[in-house]
């Protein structure tokens, strides 16, 4: 994948420094105490983001001038006593599949109609701006949120700050890499089968796929209409909760938007899991030979940690986990193919080859396959609801392994592997990934926490409590690391 780059040794300087806050919550304290200003913070992060474009390559577009102007406005408002809340003056990144009025939107593709890319803000972007956030730019992604990056498309390929020879995961690769590298304090991702949680796990950060309908999808290029979600990615579960509080809410412009009350996402974040019941599905989600031994060990250790803090960890049965994964893929590929069919027929050469080849497979799924997958969806939703009636959350590994190298990518092999994430797009349930350890090679490992529909506060409660008990989320990519890019 990196053949366009000559084999070379690359040195990354420290990705975080002491004069920068490590979280949204901490940045908010600094801004209000006068320790820094949004303009200073923004200038620092713009400089770091620009400098990292030849290494981490997190951004498609950096919106320097707009960010500086927004930061100055944020500072002026705070100085005048107008405080818009926890995101006021906070630099964030936006996945480049979401529309922004002040920067083109590409979906990392030469195929997307440029006219679409010039439209007004997506609802989520508008909400962030209204909350006072400073948007540093558009972060990179796998083309149309599917497939694998192809350097021949001309777009930069985001790389994992923990090891530049490895993927940050996908499809929200740029946001994951940017947060992990300390280029932004948070950002937006999208998730149809794990595209927020996978990069969160591979990059050692936190990310949540909210309940389907909780966050408006308006202004997002679709992948799977009935599976897509927009959600926050940040260093901590607490920061994700701060962001989701702003993003959540009914939007008449999105037909899938849910007209339900938005709870206080922070209300339960008291550090306690005492008395909570945590269900662990072993079949498909833990007892599978493909699961990396270090990942399994880290997840089991995390469960021990939560049990020691007073939670009850119980085994639960989800016998249709594997078939649910197949149903999610049938729906995702069917819905994606319906969107892309005309372009696949008339100008396939404009897609990167991995994206094109992934989307072409959508032709294999019949209408009967799609309907049957929707039947399985009903069945699995009912199965999971029965289990969740007995526990507060479910816990699984986020991914099978740590981040693979670009050279290891094998799309056919990947299709055969178990996944632990798409099932929650199928059910629509909220699912959060938080870091739960590191491999012997120093690569992050993710823990997935799944909750009941619209019960993100409980998911955050468990994730935040775990992060108060551990320090995985405070670790940052090394001061200096070398990567052989081949």
């Amino acid at each position: 994948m990196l053949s366009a780059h000559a084999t070379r040794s690359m040195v990354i300087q420290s990705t975080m420094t002491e004069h920068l806050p490590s979280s949204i919550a901490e940045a908010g304290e600094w801004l209000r105490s006068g320790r820094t200003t949004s303009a200073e913070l923004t200038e620092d992060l713009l400089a770091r983001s620009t400098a990292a474009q030849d290494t981490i390559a997190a951004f498609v577009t950096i919106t320097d001038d707009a960010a500086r102007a927004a930061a100055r406005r944020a500072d002026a408002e705070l100085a005048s006593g107008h405080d818009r809340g926890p995101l006021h003056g906070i630099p964030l990144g936006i996945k480049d599949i979401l529309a922004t009025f002040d920067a083109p939107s590409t979906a990392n593709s030469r195929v997307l109609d440029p006219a679409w890319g010039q439209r007004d803000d997506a609802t989520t972007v508008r909400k962030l701006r209204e909350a006072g956030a400073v948007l540093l730019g558009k972060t990179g992604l796998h083309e149309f949120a599917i497939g694998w990056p192809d350097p021949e498309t001309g777009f930069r390929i985001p790389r994992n700050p923990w090891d530049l020879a490895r993927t940050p995961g996908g499809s929200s690769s740029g946001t994951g890499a940017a947060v992990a590298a300390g280029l932004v304090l948070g950002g937006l991702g999208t998730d149809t089968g794990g595209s927020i949680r996978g990069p969160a796990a591979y990059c050692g950060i936190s990310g949540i796929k909210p309940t389907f309908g909780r966050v408006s999808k308006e202004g997002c290029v679709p992948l799977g209409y009935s599976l897509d979600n927009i959600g926050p990615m940040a260093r901590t579960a607490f920061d994700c909760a701060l962001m989701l509080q702003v993003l959540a809410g009914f939007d008449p412009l999105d037909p899938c938007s849910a007209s339900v009350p938005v709870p206080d996402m922070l209300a339960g974040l008291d550090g306690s899991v005492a008395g909570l019941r945590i269900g662990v599905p072993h079949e498909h989600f833990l007892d599978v030979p493909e699961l990396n031994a270090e990942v399994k060990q880290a997840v089991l250790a995390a469960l021990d940690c939560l049990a020691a803090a007073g939670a009850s960890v119980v085994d639960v049965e989800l016998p249709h986990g594997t078939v649910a994964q197949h149903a999610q893929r049938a729906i995702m590929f069917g819905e994606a193919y319906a969107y892309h069919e005309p372009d696949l027929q008339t100008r396939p050469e404009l897609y990167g080859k991995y994206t094109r080849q992934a989307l072409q497979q959508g032709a294999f799924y019949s209408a009967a396959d799609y309907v049957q997958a929707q039947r399985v969806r009903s069945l699995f939703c009912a199965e999971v609801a029965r289990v969740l009636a007995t526990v507060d959350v479910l816990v699984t590994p986020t991914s099978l392994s740590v981040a693979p190298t670009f050279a290891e990518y094998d799309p056919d092999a990947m299709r055969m592997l178990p996944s632990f994430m798409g099932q929650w797009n199928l059910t629509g349930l909220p699912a959060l990934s938080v870091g739960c350890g590191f491999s012997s090679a120093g690569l992050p490992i993710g823990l997935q926490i799944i909750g009941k529909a619209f019960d993100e506060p409980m998911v955050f409660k468990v994730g935040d409590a775990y992060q108060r008990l551990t320090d995985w989320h405070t670790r940052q990519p090394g001061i200096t690391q070398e990567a052989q890019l081949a």
Partner: protein
Amino acid sequence: MSDMTPEQIKHAVDAVVAAARLPLTGEDYERLLRTYPMVQAQMATLRFPEARYGEPASIFSPR
């Protein structure tokens, strides 16, 4: 479907590609040949008794 012969796979893929009017590179075609049996095997797992007459989770409102 997983016990299809290479010839049967080729015929099936050719039929799908023709019906879908997909222009392919040689590499695209080879990938589809490799993927087809896998997709068919996964779709076969969706057909089991409990899911035979279930109500599909389609989203539709008459309002």
